[in-house]
């Protein structure tokens, strides 16, 4: 079985990781149904 995307769910945590890694954040606003 291959990789799966490990989505962050918290804006502040994602932004903190982005700042540490100097990597952009891809934010997916989705409809959970």
């Amino acid at each position, binding site marked *: 079985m*291959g990789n*799966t995307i*490990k989505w*962050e769910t918290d804006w502040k945590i994602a932004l903190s990781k982005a700042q540490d890694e*100097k990597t952009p*954040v*891809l*934010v997916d606003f*989705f*409809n959970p149904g």
Partner: protein
Amino acid sequence: MDTVSYPDSKVTDFILNNVIPLRVPFDAEPLASDFNVKWTPTIITVDWNGIEHHRTVGFLPPEELIPSILLGLAKTYYELDQFPAALQALEKIINEYPKSGSAPEAVFLHGVCGYKNTHDPKHLKQAYEKLIAEYKDSEWAKRALPYRLIQ
């Protein structure tokens, strides 16, 4: 996106290696209001300071999603004046996804980034020539029309 694009192994590997992926419900506040989200899926590329640089609305298949994310990365680096990184992302779109919907804008932005990186206007003329040759019906070919006059 959940049944087609995100499970695709190329998409998964690309996302894991190139961005911090964040998923939030469309009505999660204050983010939904801060980013003026009105429809799903809305996919936004933000930099590490939380500033938006690119967004798409609606479904994208894998062969369009990867170049769209690359365009988001390129626009992020371009707007942060990190032109070599922007050029690298744009060249990946141009060379690996030339038939994607992101390709004409990538060619245009490649010309702009090349010019801003070197101050040589030949990059703008080259972008115009490639757009006319390969994407003549795109809006980006029209936007590049003034560059035909560059000597």
